[in-house]
């Protein structure tokens, strides 16, 4: 069975089309501009490069400075919090300890992971399925369905939160994982994105698989899906990040302290401890540092993914 799945190289060449976009994007993001690279580096140009690098470096350090200040402040004792020094006079992890003791941080973290992971998996599957169907099947009503889905992109989430809230009350979904997740388990943006990429999958490939006796679902899952992996990865990154940082809907639908997601928990904790900024900065650090670490490890894929999702969507 697995023999019929391994595709001959000629087919590989055919399928390069939908992927081509991504590799050019990759180049865009990593390669220095042709004009700049083509010119010879004489003395004046080198000086200009150094100056430019310096300006960009100062700007870039300015960009990350709030995070530096956040971590520095989180390591200061309450009595030192208003000192200007970049190095805490008597560094302490006590603030972190206190935040972990006072709040259900671990629980919030787990909640965020659960919600973001399930939502992302669901979006990845159903958006691909819908995108594939709209790209590769001709059936009565296909256009209407596509326009219907596309039109939902124009409706701001804020218009829907009130009806969703009424719905959640009627169906007893408030304060549950499903209640937090249900508005996002399929995204119109993702359907549109995946449709764009599935359109680049050659029809001959699908027809050949049909002749081989593959079921339609298997063609989708085993033949088409592997060809749009870059787009799928982009969609997953985009969706995970969006759900991880989501605020307004979880804020509305969550009622109990232990069901809070990280942003909601951090928001409540911060406003409840108004002036204790040493604790607030520790909480903010706990919320952002994991994301920063993940981002630094996967920065290429994440930046590429978001650029791709942003550009094609």
């Amino acid at each position, binding site marked *: 069975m697995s023999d019929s799945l391994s595709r001959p190289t000629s087919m590989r060449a055919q399928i390069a089309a939908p992927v081509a976009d991504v590799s050019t994007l990759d180049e865009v*993001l990593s390669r220095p501009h042709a004009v700049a690279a*083509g010119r010879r580096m004489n003395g004046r140009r080198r000086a200009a490069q150094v100056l430019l*690098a310096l300006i960009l470096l100062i700007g870039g350090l300015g960009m990350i400075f709030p995070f530096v200040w956040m971590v520095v402040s989180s390591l200061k004792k309450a009595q030192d919090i208003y000192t200007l020094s970049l190095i805490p006079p008597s560094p302490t992890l006590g603030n972190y300890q206190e935040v972990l003791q006072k709040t259900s941080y671990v629980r919030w973290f787990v909640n965020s992971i659960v919600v973001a992971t399930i939502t992302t998996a669901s979006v990845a599957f159903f958006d691909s*399925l819908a995108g594939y169907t709209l790209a590769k099947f001709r059936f009565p009503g296909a256009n209407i369905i596509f326009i219907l889905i596309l039109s939902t992109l124009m409706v701001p989430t804020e*218009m829907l939160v009130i009806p969703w809230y*009424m719905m959640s009350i009627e169906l007893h979904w408030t304060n549950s994982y499903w209640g937090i997740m249900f508005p996002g388990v399929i995204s119109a943006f993702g359907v549109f994105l995946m449709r764009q990429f599935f359109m680049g999958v050659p029809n001959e490939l699908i027809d050949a698989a049909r002749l081989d006796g593959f079921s339609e679902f298997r063609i989708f899952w085993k033949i088409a899906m592997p060809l749009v992996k870059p787009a799928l990865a982009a969609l997953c990154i985009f969706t995970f990040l969006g759900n991880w940082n989501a605020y307004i809907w979880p804020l509305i639908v969550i009622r109990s302290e232990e069901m809070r997601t990280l942003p909601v928990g951090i928001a409540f904790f911060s406003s409840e401890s108004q002036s204790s*900024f040493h604790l607030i900065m520790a909480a903010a650090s706990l919320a952002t540092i994991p994301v920063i670490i993940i981002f630094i490890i996967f920065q290429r894929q994440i930046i590429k993914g978001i650029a791709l999702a942003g550009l094609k969507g």
Partner: protein
Amino acid sequence: MSLSLQRRRWLWAYAFIAIPLFFFLFVRIGPTFYAFWMSLHRWDPIALDRPYIGLENYRNLGGDEVFWKSLRNTWIYVGVGVPAGLILSLAIALGLQRMIRFTGFFRVLYFLPYVTSLVAVGWVWRWMYMPNGLFNDLLGGIGLGPYAWLGSPDMAIYAIIATTVWQGLGFQIIIFLAGLESIPGDYLEAAALDGAGGWQQFRDVTFPLLNPTLVFLVVTGVISNLQVFTQVRAMSSQGTGGPLNSTISIVLYVYQQAFQALPSKMGYASAMTVVLFAMILAITIVQLKVLSRDTSNE
């Protein structure tokens, strides 16, 4: 009963699309109409009686000073935040594009704020804006201030916009870089051969060719700034859009009226979301017009 091949394929398609279609009908399209319906009622979720009141909610909006204030503020978020973000990100993207080394490192620096939670970074900025916080300490060192920042009705909204711009910059830079890269180097070289200086090359070649990127970023920027909520709730005094409603946005006011006011005024809040929807719809239509004009010129 045997089905033709074509019909079998139709059945597969319907089976594939069934769940997504069901979802969009019941979670997106249905609630959209429901929001319109709610906006025509006096709607308190715990009251049994939710009387139909026609357009009264919309009429009341007209006389609601806070609503007008939130509308005005929202357009300040858009009108100041979007251009500021675009100018800064374009300048940085042009700089990054000319860099030969360390491009990956710089991208990480500029992109980092975009991936972090707006709630958390909102509080970090609030900390820096405190009367005895970092900004006033630094400015005090050179004999300026102290400023009230978030405590000042004149300044607070711009302080929040600064945070918004900072957070969104990375995304805009990356999109600009992709747009800049799609401009053929030949064009710029040709312009250089014709004696165009750096500024002229930018104005006459780069900028016009960047138009589709610019339209995309303007539209996404306007739409996301129209929906500003999280940073206002994290940064304004008590999270209420203060001081003196000087930072309240439409979405924050919607949230307050629907989920914090007693009794809850969900019908009234829905009427506000309809206004927001109308604005976003208008912008989308303008975008489609602009984009279709662009392609017909090609």
